């Protein structure tokens, strides 16, 4: 297993390089000059020239890229054009926020998606199944931003139960932290719950029609035991893999959710950075996200192997 993981990590290096080159070039192709916006409304030519020089924007793009890469290899991700803060510091500040949001969202997604999926499979083609499907379809179709605003208006403004937006670190004030995160996590988890539900349902249906389940039933096991111990465990396989992969979708969803709930996380960081053409920040955030993706994929593969003994022989 360690050899397998090691191999996978080695393969990740060229992937990351290609991603960084891709993002770097894409950014340079974007119209719009960050320095013009940064120089202030007056756009003083001396300031513009100084800033171009300071951020090496006068160098050829290839030189700029290698300069950036050299920095990254020594742990220097550059400095934000907009706020003068080191990019690494920004990333370390924002990453835990988005991780908290993602974990809580995943919790909601699993809490809603898996039980309903099991129920729908067990009660296949009944009224309950149809209701569950309608719910899933609704969850998938409702846009994040709309649901977010509606929840804010209902829960915060009308009922006054939760803060409308904002963020508090879980290490500073855990209660407030959970209060501010519940709504955004629910909004973000909602769409994923639908995907999870659909997958759980089809996996369960597949397993429930297997021969060994008929045997289990025949030998007189209670339906509860059949469903939870015998079927669900096997059906869990694709669901677990999917959950790990869904973390990618979570990050994408976090961009919108963080914007609505004003959560100072990764998503908001990247949106602001793109709009301000804050090259170093975009570059750093994308690289970090790519690493996250690769790690989640790896975890999914490893889990798959761990859960499915038949695959262990292939390693």
């Amino acid at each position: 297993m360690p050899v397998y993981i090691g191999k996978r990590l080695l393969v990740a290096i060229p992937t990351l390089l290609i991603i960084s080159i891709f993002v770097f070039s894409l950014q340079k192709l974007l119209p719009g000059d960050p320095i013009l916006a940064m120089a202030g409304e007056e756009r003083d030519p001396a300031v513009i020239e100084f800033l171009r020089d300071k951020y090496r924007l006068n160098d050829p793009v290839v030189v700029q890229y290698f300069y950036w890469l050299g920095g990254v290899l020594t742990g220097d991700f550059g400095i934000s054009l907009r706020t003068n803060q080191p990019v690494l510091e920004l990333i370390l500040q924002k990453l835990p926020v988005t991780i908290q949001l993602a974990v809580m969202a995943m919790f909601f997604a699993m809490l809603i998606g898996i039980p309903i999926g099991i129920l729908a499979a067990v009660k296949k083609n009944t009224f309950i199944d149809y209701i569950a499907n309608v719910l899933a379809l609704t969850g998938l179709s409702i846009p994040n931003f709309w649901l977010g605003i509606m929840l804010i208006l209902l829960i915060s403004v009308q009922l006054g139960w939760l803060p409308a937006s904002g963020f508090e670190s879980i290490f500073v004030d855990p209660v407030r932290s959970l209060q501010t995160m519940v709504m955004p996590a629910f909004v973000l988890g909602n769409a994923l719950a639908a995907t999870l539900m659909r997958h759980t349902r089809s996996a369960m249906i597949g397993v429930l029609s297997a021969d060994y389940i008929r045997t289990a039933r025949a030998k007189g096991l209670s339906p509860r035991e059949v469903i939870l111990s015998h079927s669900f465990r096997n059906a869990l396989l694709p669901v677990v893999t999917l959950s790990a992969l869904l973390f990618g979708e979570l990050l994408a969803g976090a961009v919108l959710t963080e914007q609505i709930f004003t959560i100072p996380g990764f998503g908001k960081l990247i949106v602001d950075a793109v709009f301000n053409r804050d090259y170093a920040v975009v570059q750093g955030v994308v690289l970090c996200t790519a690493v996250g993706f690769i790690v989640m994929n790896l975890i999914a593969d490893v889990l798959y192997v761990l859960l499915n003994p038949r695959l262990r022989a292939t390693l």
Partner: protein
Amino acid sequence: MMRLTKLTTALLAGALFAFPALAVDLRIGLQDDADVLDPAQSRTFVGRIVYTALCDKLVDVSPDLKIVPQLATEWKWSADGKELTMKIREGVKFHDDTPLDAAAVVATIERNMTLPESRRKSELTSVAKVEATGPLEVKFTLKSPDVTLLAQLSDRAGMIVSPTAAKALGANFGSKPVCAGPFKFVERVQQDRIVLEKFKDYWAKDKIFVDKVTYLPIPDTTVRLANLQSGDLDFIERLAPTDVAAVKGNSGLKYDATVNIGYMALYANVANGARADNPFGKDKRLRQAFSLAIDRDAMNQIVYEGTAVGGNQPFPPNSPWFNKAIPVPARDVAKAKALIKAAGFDRVPVELQIPNNPVAQQMMQILQSMVAEAGFDVSLKSTEFATLLEEQTRGNFQLSRSDWSGRVDPDGNIHQFITCKGGINDVKYCNPDVDKLLNEARASTDDAVRKQKYDAASVILNEDMPVIYLGHQSWIWAYKKSITGFVASPDGMIRLQGVKKG
């Protein structure tokens, strides 16, 4: 039971003694996150709002846009307008206990003029030398007379920073700004909050009734208002005009608005590169016709719910600098058609570049259909702001829609846009007569003389029309009923002197 009551009473009494009064915490929702918090380097509007609490300036601006004392108690211009002497307030301290004296003022101004990262250079360009002429007296010597300097000193260029901190932190001053305002810096989390607390040695501390201020950037106007309605915020700036009715209908909230000192405009490329070579850029009659085809009042009613005012000059109609001889024109399609015909056209194609925000788009779609009736076939080209700015600078536009946030001195709303060598003259309009008038207006310390010059310039500009002014938005604030003492100011700042909560 009796015992329990006694115990509770004792505990409560103890608590009352232990915690004298509850700290007053004011939470303000801003539309954006501020950029770097160094007065020499910062450029955002919201940054300036934070500075009104953090950094005092040499002079301030009153709600009627007069220059009033702040760190400078009095000032005097020399007869030739080339020297400005200021007396500095006695006994003022920076947040790090460094005393604020003439030397500190000189150090700040020199920092603003020489720090490579400084965005204040163009604002202080007329200053040849600044020196301490006494422990509490400074003298600015100018290259040429420049009456606008005072207005510059009422903003970031005049915010005095602690020389100790500036020396220690250099260009990194924004990581822990030390000024002499009523509140001192506590912490900042990017895109989340900026926290300030009351400075106990502030020179006018008896006017400060708030212990802690937290600024929270919340870009979405609906969410910002929702936070105010749910009680998470006490105060918000830039309420969307469409939400004014909701605030007015809420008994727990108050609302304040005032026409701002900036403007909304269309910039017509008259001489910036090849894109200017078209009838619209070359024939002023077409631009005049375009302006006449716009119903400014209707646009204001529809897009801004009546909170904005129509305009045709760089100053709003309620400004003392507005030329009343050229009133905001009413829509006149017949006259517009006649002008187009006189220019030898039937229909005129125009490409209009607009920022991709919903309000600007809505406004320009209305405009598109208005001018179509007169004979303009406007195609809208929507781009995001960074691109718009670049295209405008490079001259890659025919007509471009952008705003100016406005300056206290009239010069700041006109000179750099219209003079031949103006730093942001993107339309590349150049008229020696206008240059002469605007330069003279800048040099005179007599307001009557200045007004005369601006009036004369506005007549020429209204004829040549390189910039088609559309109107002036309002600053709109909403806040809890329990907040008192806030004074709305046309510069859009939130001054906390005198503001009470509860």
